[in-house]
């Protein structure tokens, strides 16, 4: 019995020591109505941050916190109940739905924007069109000279986003499809850097979010379709994907107010300003 008492005593001491180390957020406690957490996709992150800032300006009481981690993290956080909104640059997987249902969670996704990628070359380049297969061949190093594409020029300078970026993720998934990127590719940290490098380098090819297209760059058609908001929206332009915010059940409370704000004209203007494509 002595030993049992010691064990219980030891457990009590551990609990007391551990208590300050974490927040005792009781699930049945009333959650502050003005607090909203979201986490997940790094692609969605800049939209979420810009929207949160604008939302808090017009809703002074609201306290919106945003973090990244990746789409898988966002969806997992919705499933385990640790976030209000899980941001994702891909649709939820069947496996995740099954896990969610087993835990009594009903994940509902709302498309809040579209992510479109334009393939760009230097303004002096005569290239007008590429197929997805040609694009893959260029970026994997099978095609290395502009002459192989029937245009003037020597070696193709490959400009890419770094592998940590969401834009690279899309490009890898939709274009490379498992092929390795040419080893001498320039890996740049932002859309802006890619755009500037292609502008300054005659033999360069790069890809940027649609929001970064300008008259200083030349966009080429992919599979015969020119990138634009309308071709992304009607689905004819293939280098695009929808971006989601997932909630447990239909959005409600502050999450609904926030998502409604993103879907509003004001919110969609922010989507556009962030370099993405509006949903309508």
């Amino acid at each position, binding site marked *: 019995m002595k030993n049992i008492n010691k064990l219980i005593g*030891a457990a009590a001491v551990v609990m007391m020591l551990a208590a300050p180390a974490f927040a005792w957020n009781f699930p049945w406690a009333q959650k502050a109505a003005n607090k909203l957490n979201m986490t997940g996709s790094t692609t969605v992150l800049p939209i979420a941050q810009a929207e949160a800032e604008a939302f808090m300006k017009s809703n002074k009481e609201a306290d919106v916190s945003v973090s990244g981690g990746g789409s898988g993290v966002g969806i997992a956080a919705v499933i385990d109940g640790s976030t209000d909104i899980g941001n994702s640059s891909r649709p939820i997987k069947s496996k995740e739905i099954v896990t969610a249902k087993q835990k*009594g969670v009903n994940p509902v996704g709302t498309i809040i924007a579209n992510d479109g990628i334009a393939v760009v070359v230097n303004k002096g380049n005569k290239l007008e069109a590429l197929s997805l297969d040609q694009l893959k061949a260029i970026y994997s190093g099978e095609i290395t000279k502009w002459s192989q594409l029937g245009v003037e020029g020597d070696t193709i300078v490959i400009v890419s986003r770094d592998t940590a970026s969401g834009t690279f993720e899309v490009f890898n998934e939709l274009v490379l499809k*498992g092929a390795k990127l040419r080893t001498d590719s320039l890996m740049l940290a932002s859309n802006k850097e890619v755009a500037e490098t292609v502008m300054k380098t005659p033999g360069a090819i790069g890809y940027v979010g649609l929001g970064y297209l300008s008259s200083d760059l030349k966009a080429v058609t992919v599979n015969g379709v020119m990138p634009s908001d309308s071709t992304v929206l009607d689905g004819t332009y293939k280098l695009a994907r929808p971006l989601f915010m997932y909630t447990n059940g239909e959005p409600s409370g502050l999450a609904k107010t926030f998502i409604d704000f993103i879907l509003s004209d004001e919110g969609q203007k922010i989507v556009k300003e962030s370099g993405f494509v509006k949903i309508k």
Partner: protein
Amino acid sequence: MKKAISFGLALAFVLSFFVVASAEPVSLFYGQQWDRYDYQVFGGSYVAVPAKSNNTFTIPRTYLRYKLTDDALGYEGNITLDINNVNDGENSKITITGGNVTAAGGIDWAIWVKKASVDFKKIPILSDIDAIIRVGQQDVYFGAIDTWQYPVIEKAMEDKNSIVSSADQGIALLGKIPQGYGAYELAVYNGSGYKTTDNDATNGDITDKAYDASLLLTPIAGIYARASYLHKLTNSLGTKTAAYNASAFVVGGASGPIEAFVEYVTDNAAKNHVAGTKSGVAVGVSGYIGVKLADALSVHFRADTYNPDTLVKLDEMNTFIVGMNLKLTSMTVLQLNYQLDKFVHTMHGASDNNLTNNNQFLAQLVWSW
């Protein structure tokens, strides 16, 4: 020597992934360790035996895991090395019997390759129906054994009572039902489990495989049901014709902070088979409920009843567990359990000293990285 060979093979397997890693895959090295304190008090003997207790610190599991994923190429390799005190530390316990202290002979460590498998995720036709092929040493998809996340320290009922092995070597088709309405698994294994080689050529066991099918349905959020069936031929009785069949049915649910399930398991292997008598079947029922009280605190209850042979009277074993899990940091959880194993009869024989109760007070620190 055997252990050294196993470890060498496992290491080679891991290193081979580093070579393949040049194809821009994502690799992850992670794992978990269980540090356990176990205070056992045996009691309620049918015959006069001295009081007996154990009081031991053990490391029942150290899982070293490596995962290599390449979504573009559509494969994922997994390896799990399990380093532990053999038999959950039973061989290294300090036992007090009738006032006499007995220390076990020495610390006995083992290294097992618990899992070593590769998933092929982009096989034509299969990828269209959200299915993959998994090749190698992997989970046995049965009842709750492959989904049990150890909310209490005890193993799942089918693991505790050796109804099926928790891992085996083979090949499996793992699929999802469209729209997230469930999942299914079809597998062929050696049937001998991951700790036993399937090398009994004399009796033909090497050619006899285990066949496993499991179906999980998730009709609505919060409710699920799973049915599993495993069939194999075994030569445990000296012939290759003895068929072993096991079935499991699980119904579970979750709502807010509460999770629960009930499992029914049956198999036709008579664990308490008495020579010259007819054997029945084994039947077990396990019920579990867990309640999350706070982000870092949850309580858990489990009750099992297991009858190893329905034609043998008074041979049931009942288990009651109450536990509390305290998340100390994001990577460490302290589990405190009280577990009572109550044996109804005297058939456990000399190995159990005819005891009727085994009271266990367990504290376990789970460290994940």
